[in-house]
């Protein structure tokens, strides 16, 4: 091998070593990842805020606290339905918030997470009579079915 050839190879090797040792620079991909995480976190925060609102509403309604006790005297079916709707919205936003959080961590929401949410919300929905509880269960499984097919 000629000297020229050898020097060219050495130069290439040096340059490659130099490239490997160079400090990492903020690439476009890395910036996108941070933006994505911030976006997911912001979305999770909003979803969680809604979850807290609907948690309060569901507890108040299903627990038959004032003024729902008065409303129940007028129309018990309406209160049961409202309670079921609040429970479902609570479930939906908790799943969204948790799902986004898990995605930031590099994971995806799994059945165990969803089951946890169903059990937690069922503790509230069970107080809203068969109608409210049934509405919650059907709506929750409807949402899960939709998400299942949407992600296939």
């Amino acid at each position: 091998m000629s000297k020229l050839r050898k020097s060219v190879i050495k130069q290439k090797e040096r340059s490659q070593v130099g490239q490997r040792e160079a400090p990492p620079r903020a690439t476009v991909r890395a910036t996108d990842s941070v933006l994505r995480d911030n976006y997911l976190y912001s979305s999770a925060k909003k979803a969680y805020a809604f979850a807290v609102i609907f948690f309060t509403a569901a507890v108040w309604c299903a627990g038959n606290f004032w003024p729902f006790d008065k409303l129940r005297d007028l129309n018990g079916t309406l209160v049961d339905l409202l309670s079921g709707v609040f429970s479902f919205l609570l479930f939906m936003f908790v799943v969204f918030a948790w799902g986004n959080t898990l995605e930031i961590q590099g994971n995806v929401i799994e059945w165990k997470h969803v089951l946890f949410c169903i059990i937690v919300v069922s503790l509230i929905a069970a107080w809203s009579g068969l109608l409210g509880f049934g509405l919650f269960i059907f709506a929750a499984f409807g949402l899960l079915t939709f998400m299942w097919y949407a992600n296939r």
Partner: protein
Amino acid sequence: MFVVQMSFIGTPASAVSLEPKNASPAPTIDGLLTDKDGWEKQNSTIFPYINNIVLRVYTCVFNEFIYFGFQYKTDVHDGNESFALACSNALPTNTSVNDSIWSYETVKVFRLDGKSWDEEIIKRERRARNWTSGGNRLEFKAAKITSNFTFYEFRFMRNWTRAGDVNWTWDRQYTIKIFYGTLYGNASEFFMPSLGNWTVSTPGKITLVIPASPDAPNMEDITALKFNTFVGKVVLFTIAGVGVAMVGYIMVRTRSRIKRV
């Protein structure tokens, strides 16, 4: 000839049933809705109505007596407010009993001023029976609890052998109906009420389901577990709250991880 236009307490439903359970202990007939231990453990049915008018009917059975509590809510109560419980020994399938008060064998009338009237009507007898304050066989008290609520509570012999009166035996179903009126509280109306004048009632006939036996479960036994208390409710809601808060904690922890990265 004219047709009496009936109006209803409660939205018309295809079938309404009252299902008294064996009470233990029985409610006290004192005219107070605040007798919560007595009445609030019993089965009740609500007849909602427009314009903020609601009739809630409590009922239970204790030995040879059957108990009813009418909680009536309206913005404006009439001074002559009265209720009539039309009772029959007919089964729900019997077509001889219809929406007319005349088709029932017995009617028990209760006025807000505490007077009651109890008589068979199947023969349309016009006996000179006075309004009374009740007795051993029919005990009655009425009370105006607040400006919006009145409460009528009464008990009578469930299986009385008097001809034309109720003869409700265990494990059977019977037809009843509740009427509302404002014409029967007048002190000058000394004797029996004019039954034909009742023009407001619960929609349709009501099926009264008598318990299977005196040993059948009472309301206390079939209450939804023992969580059905305020404390149980708060405990379970708190557990649910901790679950939701846990998701929030995971979020906050993830946020600090993002910041570190």
